[in-house]
């Protein structure tokens, strides 16, 4: 295979592979920026995937399925928000239980649909005009899903909202110093609720992409750690929406390249690579963070109780 063909195909596949990670990682960035860590991403993605598939299968319309997927992720995150924000229980364990519950529930709900292909899955699109471009056309603008472009757009919107609107400022402040926000007369908890729910919505959409577009089917191991990789991605991107794009594409490219080694390695070892790569990415982030002054949101993982320091 020619080297340029290889590069083009790798980048095109990387985009498709990175899409669910982008959605979920973006959601987690928003939630964590408000100070609420949500380890339930894996569970919310599974819930989104199974609900989206079930609804698309019954109604015959993938877009209803996608809406249902987002809603399912949101409902999952509502559970987490209630336990972690209102009840002020441990956010880490609450998210973990959401993952366990989400994986169990989705497997239970999805029993009827295992092994059935979606009759009318999401179609890929070619972007008019841009598809004609040499090299860039086949790389970025042919045979991709709308959801891929939507994820990129969502990242830009999230960046604009977080860093260039008043609402975004409040959200970030709630994550850094909730006491100050409270003292300024603004409410901490509604902001956190909103951030967590948006996070759930995006994770659900990421799950929906898997079952409606990427695979068009449902199986128990569908999410298979992607939610956890998305969590790592949020850290790797240092909680910045635009860096999520870069990081996501880097992840996607590495995985796709790895899968091209299929002739050399046994498949089980190749499947292992995304997880190994995730660990390496976290190590790299930690090493780099030692040199730069980036950090997690100051109040990450801490429930807010007025009057408490």
């Amino acid at each position, binding site marked *: 295979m020619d080297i340029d063909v290889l590069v083009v195909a790798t980048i095109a596949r990387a985009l498709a592979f990175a899409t669910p990670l982008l959605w979920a990682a973006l959601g987690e960035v928003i939630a964590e920026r408000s100070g609420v*860590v949500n380890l339930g991403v894996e569970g919310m993605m599974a819930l989104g995937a199974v609900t989206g598939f079930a609804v698309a299968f019954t109604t015959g319309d993938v877009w209803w399925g996608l809406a249902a997927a987002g809603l399912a992720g949101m409902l999952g995150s509502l559970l987490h928000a209630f*336990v972690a924000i209102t009840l002020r229980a441990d956010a880490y364990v609450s998210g973990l239980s959401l993952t366990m*519950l989400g994986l169990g529930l989705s497997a239970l709900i999805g029993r009827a649909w295992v092994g059935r292909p979606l009759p009318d899955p999401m179609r890929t699109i070619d972007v008019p005009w841009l598809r004609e471009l040499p090299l860039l056309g086949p790389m970025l603008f042919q045979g991709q899903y709308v959801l891929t472009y939507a994820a990129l757009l969502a990242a830009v919107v999230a960046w604009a909202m977080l860093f260039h609107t008043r609402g975004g400022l409040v959200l970030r402040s709630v994550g850094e110093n909730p006491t100050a926000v409270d003292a300024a007369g603004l409410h901490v908890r509604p902001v956190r609720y909103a951030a967590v729910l948006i996070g759930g919505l995006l994770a659900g959409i990421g799950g929906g992409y898997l079952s409606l577009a990427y695979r068009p089917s449902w199986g128990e191991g569908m999410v298979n750690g992607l939610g956890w990789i998305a969590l*790592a991605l949020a850290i790797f991107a240092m909680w910045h929406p635009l860096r999520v794009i870069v990081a996501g594409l880097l992840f996607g490219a590495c995985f796709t390249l790895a899968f091209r080694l299929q002739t050399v390695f046994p498949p*089980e070892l190749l499947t292992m690579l995304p997880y190994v790569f*995730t660990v390496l990415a*976290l190590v790299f982030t930690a090493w780099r963070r030692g040199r730069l002054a980036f950090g997690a949101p100051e109040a990450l993982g801490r429930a807010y109780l007025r009057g408490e320091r």
Partner: protein
Amino acid sequence: MIGALRRRRAARRWEPRADAPAWRVMLVTIAAVAVAALVVTWVFVAYGVAPGEAWATIVRRTLLEPRGLSETVRKAIPLLLAGIGLLLAFRARFWNIGAEGQILAGAIGATAVALFTELPGPLVVPAMFLAGMLAGAAWGAVPALLKARMGVNEIITTLMFNYIALYLVRWLINGPWKARSATGFSYSERFPAEAVLPTLGATRLHWPTLAIALVLVAVVALLLARSRFGFEVEVLGRSPEAARYAGIDAGRVTLLLAALAAGAAGLAGVGEVAGIHRRLVEPTQLSLGYGYAAILVALLARGKALAVVPAALFLGFVFAAGDVMRVSLRLPSQLPDVVTGLVLLLVVASEPLTRGRWVRRDPAEAATAPAAEAPVAPPAAATAGAPAGGAAHASPDGEG
């Protein structure tokens, strides 16, 4: 809705308690489990199974019949081992959720000894336990080292190591260690007789592993209560700041704890391959999610080593009940996972109830609300050794 909550709160005040009384913790835990049982009852109804009869069948087949009881206990063995390890790790706020991978690593270690060494008969089983423990400990030590030296988030690394271990086992049984007779399903060669653990009568209760687990629980209980190491763990868990002032090397303690915890999970893996399967099998059959359920065991025990025994037995019951539901009641096999997740959620959600209580404000005090709302000490200090509570106020440091 949130506004309404706020208004109601103005009349009451949250009063954290220095030490939650044991009866209160117990009551809250029992209530959480009871709510889960109610949900299960509702599931029975939803699936058209008579709930009374269903519960009777479950209790009979998991607790009353000797064979059923042996299944409950043997499923509690890996939960005991992994659970006591996690309890240790969680007390020092090392959020190891990699017990599943450490169980698999232990199984790999034991299989290597069973199939590829030429030891004299009586030495084989001890060597397998040793190898499994070391393999598990090594598997857990890598994330611990990364956390202690570089501040890499251990939640994600330990979880990634679960997947890595899973695919490693799959590679071994499909590649280098694949049995010659294996067609369709993949597995390793059968262990020789001297590498198989004895079981109690005709049951699958591999009692040597159970004995090791119980001894380990007792040792950990003693260690935590009576030793300098236990004191260091205690201080580190309550306040990393205080630990630093006290001259405790947090990195060393974390590493030691994480290795101990992972070693215990490794032992659980040895028990599963040597006691039940007698060969290395597909990873999802080898450990039925024991590593994840062990998290719940450790949290249910709320920092008390001896409480791991009833907690593990309870989850052993959940797993065994899952089998009964599937086989006798024809209910979906995914139910136990849902129940485990639900109990975990309820236990977490109810945890704040053990940390304090709502008290009615004096009318005079209420008049000055909400500015005077709860000028209180951080409940972090109020949680006696309960990892879930304390950690709400101190995130696992070094997010990444």
